[in-house]
Each structure stands twice: as structure tokens, then as C-alpha cells.
């Protein structure tokens, strides 16, 4: 088994390394979950390939870019899809989440509490609601309970991480009222024994700073 070292900031947990941690945890693969404080970043940054994290060290070689890392791990550990078409569909869903992470950065970094609230409200209405409706339609079409094919892929983990572990925790489940299939999917992922094991360990070991 290769030695995996995943490097990222120590906060927030829903950041861009979480998907890779979920993939490794679900696959039952050990990894070094290296987290550093923001004050350490200036020293670490020049050692990374492109001045960003997360990075993954695999037996001494380094990979950058969160979805590249996640895809690499998913493929290595049976979570990428069962053929090349399914792999492409999983990529598509993971890219959707990547875009949604970029989009939520705007309200996330806003300091003014009144403006922040407004930005989040608009975000949920203008960006999240249409996407939820579109995904619900795709889930209905696929009709297996999973986003891709008939078994779990990293796409399902990505949607769980964003919609359950992030948005539901933040806003409750009301926004999923009209999306029973998406809700069922993220609940199903949440209930997976290895996912539960990971989140319990994570929450106990890295208490979240309340935003």
C-alpha cells in the first residue's frame, strides 16, 4: 500500500481536502492527514507545486489540485465508476461541486454580517435551488439511488460533503424539501459505517471553530 500524505489547512473541515479524506476513509485506506496552521502557510507555500493546497504526497511524488487528488484516489480505490463513461459522469458531478465551492466562497468570506446573510440567501435561491432541482432530475433518470451507475462513487461522496456536511449543517434540510432523492442519497452516504467512523473521529479530533 502506498504511503499517502494529504496536506491542507487545519480549518475549515469542509474545505477542499475533505472529499479526499472521505474517499480514503470510505475505502478503508490509511493516510496521514497533515493539517497546518495558517501562520505556517508562508513557509509551506513555496514547497508546493503551484503555491496551493491541498497536495497529496504519494511515496514521495506530489500531486496538486483538489479534484485531481480526489480522482486519483477514487480510481486507485474503486470509487471512480465502472467504465470510462461512468468515470466521466463522476468527473462531471465532482466538477459541479468544485464550481459550487467556488461560488460559496463569496458569501463565506464576507465579513459584514448583514451583507453576509443577504449573500447567502441569494446564493441558496439563485445558485443552489436550480442545481438541486437539476440533480434531482438526473437522480430520477439514473434511478439507482446513486448519481452514477448503480453503486457508490466519489461523486456521491462529493455531494454528501457539500450538501449534507456543509449546507444542511448550516441551513437545515428545508432547501432539500423538493429533492427527496438527493436527500435520500446524502442520508445514505452519511449512514455508511466508514463515513460515520470518519466524521466521528474528525469532529472529536478537530473541533470546528464556530463561524
Amino acid at each position, binding site marked *: 500500500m502506498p504511503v499517502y500524505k494529504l496536506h491542507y489547512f487545519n480549518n475549515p473541515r469542509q474545505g477542499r481536502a475533505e472529499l479526499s479524506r472521505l474517499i480514503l476513509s470510505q475505502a478503508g485506506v490509511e493516510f496521514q492527514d497533515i493539517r497546518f496552521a495558517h501562520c505556517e502557510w508562508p513557509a509551506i507555500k513555496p514547497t508546493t507545486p503551484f503555491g496551493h493546497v491541498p497536495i497529496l504526497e504519494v511515496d514521495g511524488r506530489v500531486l496538486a489540485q483538489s479534484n485531481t487528488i480526489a*480522482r486519483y484516489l477514487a480510481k486507485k480505490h474503486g470509487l471512480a465508476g465502472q467504465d470510462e463513461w461512468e468515470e466521466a459522469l463522476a468527473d462531471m458531478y465532482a466538477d459541479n461541486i468544485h464550481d459550487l465551492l467556488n461560488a460559496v466562497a463569496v458569501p463565506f468570506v464576507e465579513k459584514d454580517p448583514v451583507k453576509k446573510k443577504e449573500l447567502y440567501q441569494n446564493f441558496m435561491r439563485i445558485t443552489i435551488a436550480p442545481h438541486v432541482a437539476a440533480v434531482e432530475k438526473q437522480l430520477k433518470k439514473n434511478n439507482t439511488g446513486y448519481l452514477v451507475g448503480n453503486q457508490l462513487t466519489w461523486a456521491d461522496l462529493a455531494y454528501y460533503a457539500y450538501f449534507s456536511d456543509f449546507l444542511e449543517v448550516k441551513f437545515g434540510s428545508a432547501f432539500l424539501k423538493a429533492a427527496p432523492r438527493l436527500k435520500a442519497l446524502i442520508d445514505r452516504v452519511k449512514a455508511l459505517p466508514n463515513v460515520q467512523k470518519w466524521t466521528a473521529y474528525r469532529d472529536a479530533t478537530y473541533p470546528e471553530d464556530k463561524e
Partner: protein
Amino acid sequence: MVHYKLIYFNLRGRGELARLILHHQEVAFEDFRFEREEWTKYKTGTPFGQVPVLEVDGKPLAQSNAIARYLARQHGLAGQNEWEQSQADMYVDCIYDLISGTRPIIHESDKEKQKEILQKFLKETVNPHLEKLEQQLIKNGTGFLVGKSITWADLAYYSFFSPMTERFGDSVMDNSPHLKKLVEHVANIPQIKKYVETRPKTTL
């Protein structure tokens, strides 16, 4: 023979990488383009209200990089092994971030403000990236980003930096001789050259 239909605006933008991959590998495809004014007509037919979309024998695939990666893999431009494929993914993700960084510039209507945002983008985002990229190109030592031969990663860098120099001048790659050489190399590939000469002329 698989039928490909690539659906996108009549722009280069996020559809161009897929087109370049297909032209480079001389794979026939339907290059379906529509004008901005027609967008509402096509939007509801897409999986997530966005383009590009690739239809493969009628089955839709969305997300520009998922599309480009699928085509690269199907047609021998993805990298020679798993690690190379991941390295190519990494570089294309970097370009995706750079493209996203140009959006505030493109959407700024005030010319003075646009110039300001552009300069900031070049100084704080593009130039630091290019510094790192030169190091990676030197380290790889083959002239290509990944391995010994061309991959979709090289086409992605061409696809971004060629319009950048078109728009903002050659100085964009002044401190990046290896990237400049790579972009020129891609530009001179016969299939690419022919496509570029014959494709619709678009601002973006």
C-alpha cells in the same frame, strides 16, 4: 463510429479545449455553436443549465473538463500511465482556475477598472503561476508538460495563453520561455493550424 456533438456558444471559451483535442486527433464531430441571444433556447435542454455539453451517441456529458478528459482518454491524449494522467489533470485544473480568474475582467464594463483588475490578475495570479510552471517544464525536460509527448494539458495551456497574448501582447510570456516555446509548438501543429485558420473568428 461514435457520434459526437459538442454544444457550446460560438466562442472559444470553455468549449475550445474539447475542439482542439478532437482536431488534433483528427476525430470527426459535430461542432454545434449558437449565439448568445439563443442561449435560453438551449439552456433547458442541458443537464445543469450550462454549456459546453458533449453528446456521445445522444448521451449528454456536462462540465468542460469532464468532457475534455473523456475525449483525451478515448483518443490517446490523456497521458501514458496513471500518474501522467493525474499530472495532466492537475495542469488542466490550473488552467480552469485561470479561466475563472478572467471572468471578473471580461464582465467589467468600465475600461479603466477593467485594466486595473487585469493588471492585478496578471501580477497576483498569472505571473506567480507562470514562475512555478517554468520550473515544472524545466524539471520535466521534454518540452511538454507531462511525460515525453503531447497531452491535453499542453493543448489546455495553448488554449488559454494563445488568446491571452492575442489580447494583451507577447509580454504575458516574457519570463516564461519554455511555456512560450510550448505554445508556439502547439500553434504550429498542422491540424491545429488548419483548424485555427478555418474556425469562426470570435472575441473570446
